[in-house]
C-alpha cells in the first residue's frame, strides 16, 4: 500500500523515481478515505472516479503538486463536486466553477479527491454543528476533532491525505489542527483569494492549509497565495518563495511571550507543553521577550459581534430561489423564504443569524457593532506595538486538548471560549500557525500557535520548521490509514 501519509516531498520523489504513480496514490487515498470514514465521518463526498481520472490525465512535472491528493473543506467550490457547507440548505448543491485556490492547486497538478465535513457554514469549534453528523477525532473517536474544519484536520491526522484545505474565520483551521496533531496555517487577510469560498464573516475569512510538516505548508502556500482579480480584498503583495526561505536557523529571532494569556482557563498540561516549546526555541538561540496584549481579553466579545453581524448579512442569500433547498407547501414568497430558512439552517446558524441581526438592528448598531469595530482597532494596535519588539508571538492554540463529543453543545458561550487564542489573529488580519508539540497524558495532541505581523508567513514557517526539526512529532493516532 502506498503511504499517502507521506509528505508532499516524499510522494513527489517516489513519483519522479517511478516507484509509484499519481493513479496509485489517488487510489490509495480514496481507499483509505472510504475505509476510515465509517469511524471518522470526515468526508461528505469521496470522488473515486473523478480522482482516478484526473490522476491518469496528469503528465509528469505538471507542477509542484503533480499527483498530490488533496481533501477540501465542503465550503470551498470545486467544479463537479458538491458544496454543502455542512448544511441542509445547500445539500447537494454543485457549483458551476472552481474557487481560485482550487484553480491554482489544479494548475500545479494536485488531485482533489474529496470534500470534507465541517460545522454548518463554518460556524463552530467542535464540528458538532454539521447537518451530516459530527466528525470524530482519530486520536479518540469519543472526542471532537475541533472545528470548524474538523473533517480536513481528521483526514490529515488519519494519514488519508498529505494536504487539506480549510477556512479560518476565528480559528477554524488552527483549532482543529491543534486538536488533531497537525500543522494548520491561517494566512494574512488578503494573502489567499476568497473567491469560491462560501462567505461567513467576510472581513475575517481566509482559506487555510493543513499539512503534516511546515515544509509542506510552505509548498502549498506558495501555490495558492497571491492577488486575484475575482477578490478585491486580495492584496498586491509579492508572494515570496516560502520553500527557499525555510531554514532551521532561528538564532537571534525574537519570540514574544504574552504571559497574561497563560493564566485562567488554560489546561495545566497544555501550559506545560507550550512552555516546553518556548524552552526549545530558547535552546535554538531565539530570544524570548515579554509582550503585552492588553485588549486580547475582549477578543471573543468583539468577534461574536462582528462575525455574527457579517454572517447575518452573508447568509441572507440562502432563500430557496437560485440554488439549494426550497421548503414545500409555502404558497407565498415571504412564507417560502421563512420556511426554507427555518427548515434549511441548523440551530447554531440560526442563533448566529439572529444575534447578528440583533446587533445590527436600529438603535443597537452603535452600541454593539460600532463599539466592536473600535475595540477591534485596539486589538490591532496591541499587535502592532508587540511586533515592534518581537518577530512572532507564541501562545497555546487551544486552551484544552480535544473534549468529549456532546460536552459543550448545550452551552454556546462555553463553546465560543475555545477560540480565545485564535480569534485575535482574524480580528487583526495577521497570520497564525498551529504547530503540534506533543501529547497529553491521555494521548491527545497539543499544539502551540505562532502569530506574526502582516505578510510574515515566511517567518512563521521558518520558526515552525526549526521546531519540527528539533522536536519532530512522529506519533500516530489509533485510527490511521497505513
Amino acid at each position, binding site marked *: 500500500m502506498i503511504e499517502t501519509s507521506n509528505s508532499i516531498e516524499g510522494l513527489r520523489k517516489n513519483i519522479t523515481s517511478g516507484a509509484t504513480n499519481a493513479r496509485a496514490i489517488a487510489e490509495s487515498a480514496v481507499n483509505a478515505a472510504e475505509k476510515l470514514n465509517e469511524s471518522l465521518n470526515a468526508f461528505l463526498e469521496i470522488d473515486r472516479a473523478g480522482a482516478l481520472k484526473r490522476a491518469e490525465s496528469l503528465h509528469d512535472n505538471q507542477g509542484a503538486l503533480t499527483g498530490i491528493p488533496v481533501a477540501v473543506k465542503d465550503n470551498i467550490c470545486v467544479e463537479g463536486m458538491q458544496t454543502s457547507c455542512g448544511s441542509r440548505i445547500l445539500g447537494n*448543491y454543485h457549483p458551476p466553477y472552481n474557487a481560485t485556490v482550487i484553480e491554482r492547486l489544479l494548475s500545479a497538478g494536485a488531485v482533489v479527491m474529496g470534500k470534507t465535513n465541517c460545522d454548518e457554514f463554518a460556524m463552530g469549534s467542535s464540528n458538532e454543528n454539521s447537518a451530516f453528523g459530527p466528525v470524530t477525532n482519530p486520536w479518540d473517536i469519543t472526542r471532537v476533532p475541533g472545528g470548524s474544519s474538523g473533517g480536513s484536520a481528521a483526514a490529515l491526522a488519519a494519514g488519508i491525505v498529505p494536504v487539506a484545505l480549510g477556512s479560518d474565520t476565528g480559528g477554524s483551521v488552527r483549532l482543529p489542527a491543534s486538536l488533531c496533531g497537525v500543522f494548520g496555517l491561517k494566512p494574512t487577510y488578503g494573502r489567499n483569494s476568497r473567491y469560491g469560498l462560501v462567505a461567513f464573516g467576510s472581513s475575517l475569512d481566509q482559506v487555510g492549509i493543513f499539512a503534516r510538516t511546515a515544509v509542506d505548508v510552505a509548498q502549498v502556500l506558495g501555490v495558492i497565495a497571491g492577488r486575484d482579480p475575482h477578490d478585491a480584498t486580495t492584496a498586491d503583495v509579492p508572494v515570496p518563495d516560502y520553500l527557499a526561505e525555510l531554514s532551521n536557523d532561528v538564532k537571534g529571532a525574537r519570540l514574544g511571550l504574552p504571559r497574561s494569556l497563560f493564566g485562567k482557563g488554560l489546561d495545566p498540561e497544555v501550559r506545560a507543553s507550550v512552555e516546553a516549546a518556548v524552552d526549545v526555541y530558547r535552546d535554538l538561540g531565539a530570544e524570548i521577550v515579554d509582550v503585552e496584549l492588553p485588549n486580547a481579553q475582549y477578543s471573543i*466579545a468583539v468577534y461574536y459581534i462582528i462575525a455574527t453581524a457579517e454572517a447575518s448579512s452573508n447568509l*441572507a442569500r440562502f432563500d430557496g*430561489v437560485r440554488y439549494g433547498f426550497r421548503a414545500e407547501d409555502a404558497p407565498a414568497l415571504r412564507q417560502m423564504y421563512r420556511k426554507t430558512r427555518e427548515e434549511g439552517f441548523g*440551530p447554531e446558524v440560526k442563533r448566529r443569524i*439572529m*444575534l447578528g441581526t440583533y446587533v445590527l438592528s436600529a438603535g443597537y448598531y452603535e452600541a454593539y457593532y460600532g463599539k466592536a469595530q473600535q475595540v477591534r*482597532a485596539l486589538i490591532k494596535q496591541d499587535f502592532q506595538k508587540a511586533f515592534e519588539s518581537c518577530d512572532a508571538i507564541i501562545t497555546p492554540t487551544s486552551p484544552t486538548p480535544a473534549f468529549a463529543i456532546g460536552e459543550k453543545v448545550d452551552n454556546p458561550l462555553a463553546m465560543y471560549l475555545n477560540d480565545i487564542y485564535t480569534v485575535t489573529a482574524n480580528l*487583526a488580519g495577521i497570520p497564525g500557525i498551529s504547530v503540534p508539540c506533543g501529547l497529553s497524558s491521555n494521548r491527545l495532541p497539543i499544539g502551540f500557535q505562532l502569530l506574526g505581523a502582516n505578510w510574515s508567513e515566511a517567518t512563521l514557517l521558518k520558526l515552525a520548521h526549526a521546531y519540527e526539526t528539533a522536536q519532530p512529532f512522529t506519533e500516530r493516532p489509533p485510527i490511521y490509514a497505513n
Partner: protein
Amino acid sequence: MPITEADVEKVAQLAHLEITKEELKIFAPQMSDIVAYVEQLEALDTSNVEPALGGLTPEGEATDAARDDVTMPSLGQKTALAEAPDGAAGHFRVPKVL
C-alpha cells in the same frame, strides 16, 4: 439587557426565520447570555478610537479593485439556472409575491 422571547421573535422576523415555540424557549436565554457577555465592552473607553473597518487590507487601506470596463465571460443563463429549485423558461420561478 436580557433578551426576551418577544425580542427573539422580532429578530427572527427581521432575519426571515420562522422559528418554533420550542426554539424560542431555547434561544432566548442563550442569546441573553451571549449578549450579556459581549456587553463587557461597554466598560472600555473608546471615545477617541477610530473604528477598524472591514473590507480593507490588514493595514487598513483600500485595495486597487478597479479593473478595465470590459466584458468578461459569465456563467450564461443555462448554467446559472441549473441548480435552481424551480427554474422555468429562463427564469427563477417563485411562489406568488402577494
